């Protein structure tokens, strides 16, 4: 008989048994086959930050070129590739993945479970993401990087005006990120809805989990649009379909509708997880539950729903039916209501709590100020008549860097600081962290505030150079200086991370006295996350004195507790698959198919056959590629 945990099996012997059961295999093979959500999540985060660095380096190149009028440092062709790569890297390889990555690491811990749902799919998702990113960057270095911007409008990106492979590379990058993101979304939805600790009914779920749940649903509904759009594009380019060719009944606007049906939700897919970070941080450092929990949930859900109705606000200048103008305006601005309510609730939480001035809270303050400014300029461009002036200018560039960096990167850096003990077992250096916030905040505004004015003074975006004498020179110079300072502040942050990994203060299980479950296990958590599955009675379980647990899961097999979707009543014991090499090989096969398809459509068919093999083995219980066959699938 297998042993289960319980009063007579606890403490050190239990830990030893669980560690044996839940460890990935040792060595390089173990590294390739790892499925532990913490390991995969950490990898995911590190990779995403590498892409932030790469995208940032491109930004610095652009800012160097734009520092002076008529600058000839970078050719038009190179510049176009650079901004296309900057946008694509930041959106597809940094911002969306990093949010998923944080969730992959944190959510299972926060839900009180031992492993994410579908861990092999999770490993596969990471590999696909990594290979897709490498593919894009290698292509870029070989001078076949994308050249038509991060939204690749047709016909510019079509077969006639973008000959060569550059746009094909872009379109396949989309397919890669697509697959990776959709896989994570399904895992996260399932983990959140089915693997919550007993008693954690939906209305007791931490706000971060709510925001990831909403984000994941948005991924599920939004990503297929860009998948369809990019498949149409690549087939127009490779097999002469006519989806976007106006001469043959196709329509260039079809692309824009499909792209923005994805693209608009996409920006909230980036922003909503950040909202979750902010809620967790505010709660912990205000030492009270977030004010207006139901309002916050409602706000996040309504932002998620509204986001699907607003895509046309990226298309105001295309000549939409005039009748609709005021409707689009109102619909787009409506999102300011849930946005504003959230802002209020966070400030109210601080106001009525006992704020502790730790670095993550500083990031939250930087976030609130910056994001509100970006949100308010969002409201301006949401007005059709105003947008017709601001669209495709640096004003919009300013808007979206305020919301992307102020609204998502600042909370992210706060979140990394906050959860650093869980990643590494140590705390990040102080007071360096606080200086970092101040420095980033000032450098950020120095970089991007002037862009509002440059835009209003008539500077369009995506120009590799501009004439002297239109009043843009000084403003651009200031932006460029700011950009280097801001990059310095990002480097400072990374420096702090590296230094603290070795030299940071060793952290206890719950160094910030936070209320949610991820702080229950030690820092960093053991491979099995929880010795016994925690049972929850309130929204802030770790602030309760009574912290019961539920015994009974097997310890010599990977077993998870499955609870009901709404009330989190224990329902089933489910097996969690052990590490396995097939996700890695399936990712390789998939990559070969995707990359090959750029060169010949037949690669799709051969690639599908090639993919079928590892996929079949992946799902087949007990296969020869499992490092620890004795664990079985059950």
């Amino acid at each position: 008989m297998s042993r289960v945990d319980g009063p007579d099996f606890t403490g050190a012997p239990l830990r030893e048994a669980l560690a044996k059961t839940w460890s990935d295999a040792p060595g390089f093979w173990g590294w390739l086959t790892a499925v532990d959500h913490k390991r995969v999540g950490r990898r995911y985060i590190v990779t995403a930050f590498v892409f932030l660095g790469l995208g940032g380096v491109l930004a610095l190149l652009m800012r160097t070129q734009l520092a002076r009028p008529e600058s000839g440092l970078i050719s038009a062709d190179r510049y176009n590739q650079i901004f296309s790569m900057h946008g694509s890297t930041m959106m597809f390889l940094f911002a969306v993945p990093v949010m998923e990555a944080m969730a992959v690491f944190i959510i299972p811990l926060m839900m009180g479970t031992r492993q994410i749902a579908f861990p092999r799919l999770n490993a596969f998702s990471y590999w696909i993401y990594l290979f897709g990113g490498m593919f894009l960057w290698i292509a870029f270095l070989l001078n076949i990087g994308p050249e038509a911007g991060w939204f690749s409008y047709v016909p510019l990106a079509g077969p006639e005006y973008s000959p060569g492979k550059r746009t094909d590379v872009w379109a396949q990058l989309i397919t890669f990120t697509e697959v990776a993101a959709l896989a994570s979304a399904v895992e996260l939805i399932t983990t959140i809805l089915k693997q919550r600790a007993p008693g954690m009914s939906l209305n007791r779920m931490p706000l971060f989990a709510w925001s990831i749940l909403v984000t994941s649903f948005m991924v599920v509904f939004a990503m297929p649009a860009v998948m369809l759009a990019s498949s149409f594009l690549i087939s127009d380019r490779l097999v002469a379909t006519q989806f976007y060719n106006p001469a043959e009944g196709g329509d260039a606007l079809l692309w824009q509708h499909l792209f923005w049906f994805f693209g608009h939700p996409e920006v909230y897919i980036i922003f909503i997880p950040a909202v979750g970070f902010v809620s967790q941080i505010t709660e912990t450092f205000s030492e009270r539950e977030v004010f207006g929990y139901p309002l916050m949930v409602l706000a996040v859900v309504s932002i998620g729903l509204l986001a699907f109705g607003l895509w046309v606000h990226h298309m105001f200048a295309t000549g939409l039916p005039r009748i609709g103008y005021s409707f689009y305006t109102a619909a787009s601005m409506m999102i300011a209501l849930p946005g504003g309510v959230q802002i209020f609730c966070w400030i109210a939480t601080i106001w009525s709590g006992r704020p502790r001035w730790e670095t993550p809270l500083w990031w939250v303050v930087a976030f609130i100020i910056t994001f509100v400014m970006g949100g308010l300029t969002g409201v301006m461009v949401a007005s059709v008549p105003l947008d017709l002036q601001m669209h495709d200018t640096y004003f919009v560039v300013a808007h979206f860097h305020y919301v992307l960096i102020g609204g998502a990167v600042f909370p992210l850096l706060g979140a990394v600081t906050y959860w650093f003990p869980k990643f590494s077992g140590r705390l990040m250096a102080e007071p360096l962290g606080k200086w970092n916030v101040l420095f980033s905040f000032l450098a950020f505004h120095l970089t991007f505030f002037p862009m509002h004015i440059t835009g209003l003074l008539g500077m369009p975006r995506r120009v590799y150079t501009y004439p002297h004498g239109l009043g843009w020179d000084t403003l651009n110079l200031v932006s460029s200086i700011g950009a280097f300072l801001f990059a310095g502040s990002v480097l400072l942050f990374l420096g702090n991370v590296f230094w603290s990994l070795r030299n940071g203060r060793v952290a206890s299980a719950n160094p910030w006295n936070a209320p949610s479950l991820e702080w229950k296990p030690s820092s960093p958590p053991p491979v099995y996350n929880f010795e016994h599955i925690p049972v929850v009675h309130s929204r802030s379980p770790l602030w309760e004195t009574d912290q019961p647990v539920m015994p009974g899961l097997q310890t010599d097999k990977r077993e998870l507790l499955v609870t009901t979707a709404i009330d989190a009543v224990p329902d089933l014991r489910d097996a969690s698959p052990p590490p396995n090499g097939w996700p890695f090989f399936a990712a390789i096969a998939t990559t070969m198919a995707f990359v090959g398809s750029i060169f010949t459509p037949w690669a799709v068919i051969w690639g599908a056959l090639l993919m079928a093999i590892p996929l079949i083995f992946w799902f087949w219980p007990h296969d020869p590629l499992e490092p620890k066959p004795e664990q079985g699938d059950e």
Partner: protein
Amino acid sequence: MNAIQSALHPAGDHAALTARLFHLFLSVTGFFFLLVLVFLGWALWRRDRGGDNERRLRITVVIWAMLITAGLFGLTIGSYLTDRGLFFTGAGEEPIRLKVTGRQWWWEVEYSAAADQSQHIVTANEIHLPLGRPAHIELVADDVIHSLWIPNLAGKQDLIPGRPADLELRPRQLGRFRAQCAEFCGLQHAHMALDVVVETPEQFAAWAAKSRQPAPIPQTDAQKRGFAIVTGSQCSACHAITGTDAFGTVGPDLTRVASRFTLAAGELPDTRAWLDRWIADPQAIKPGNRMPKVPLTDAQRHDVVAYLETLK
């Protein structure tokens, strides 16, 4: 600073309406921003933190939501009224009609009065408008998407292949403004500008009358030699010059090229020296543009420039 390409310096009805709307938005959003800052500051620094505040906060959040709703309502109404205003500006008066075609990477401009071919004017990279009269611009794209944006006069409008569109404006200030393509359209998107000249109705009429004339006849020997080269196959394959055998449609109409303010879509001043350098090597000046370097000897090129200089 030269505010000839600025949304903040309106010189036409449409731009003025949107600038006013901008100020409305700026004040309303500024007000909300201040509220947020004050509340945040207070939350961070307040001393006395006792007591049960939940009820007070609950009331405040309701007030806040109502305030936001009111603010949004006001802004929507403002947008709506501006929209209406934009739509009716110039209604009733017969507008001047022209057609602008976006090409990689220059603008073709055509004026035509009814079906009368002799009234037809074709030019490039330059729009002339009579002061105070509404203008109706038909927008067409031949290749990829472009966007016509004359910030001092009106908001932008995309030119999308397969989807005819139009733009209305009404200039209220004399002068020369600059427009720029606002939708990324490939390599030289940065160098796709357009001069907009707002002049008195008399000046405009004079310009139009002159523009309807065929190109002047070359006089000197150099001009005649240049004429022969230009209207021979080398240039006429792409360029048209009214009254000659040059009918090309790939590049800008050259009938009045020397009278324009700039060359190559705002890229160069329209001077003899620049004209010469442009023809010597257009790819060096505007890399990737659709005009190749035509092999001409220095002497031939000087003749060509001498001829082009007469096209005023």
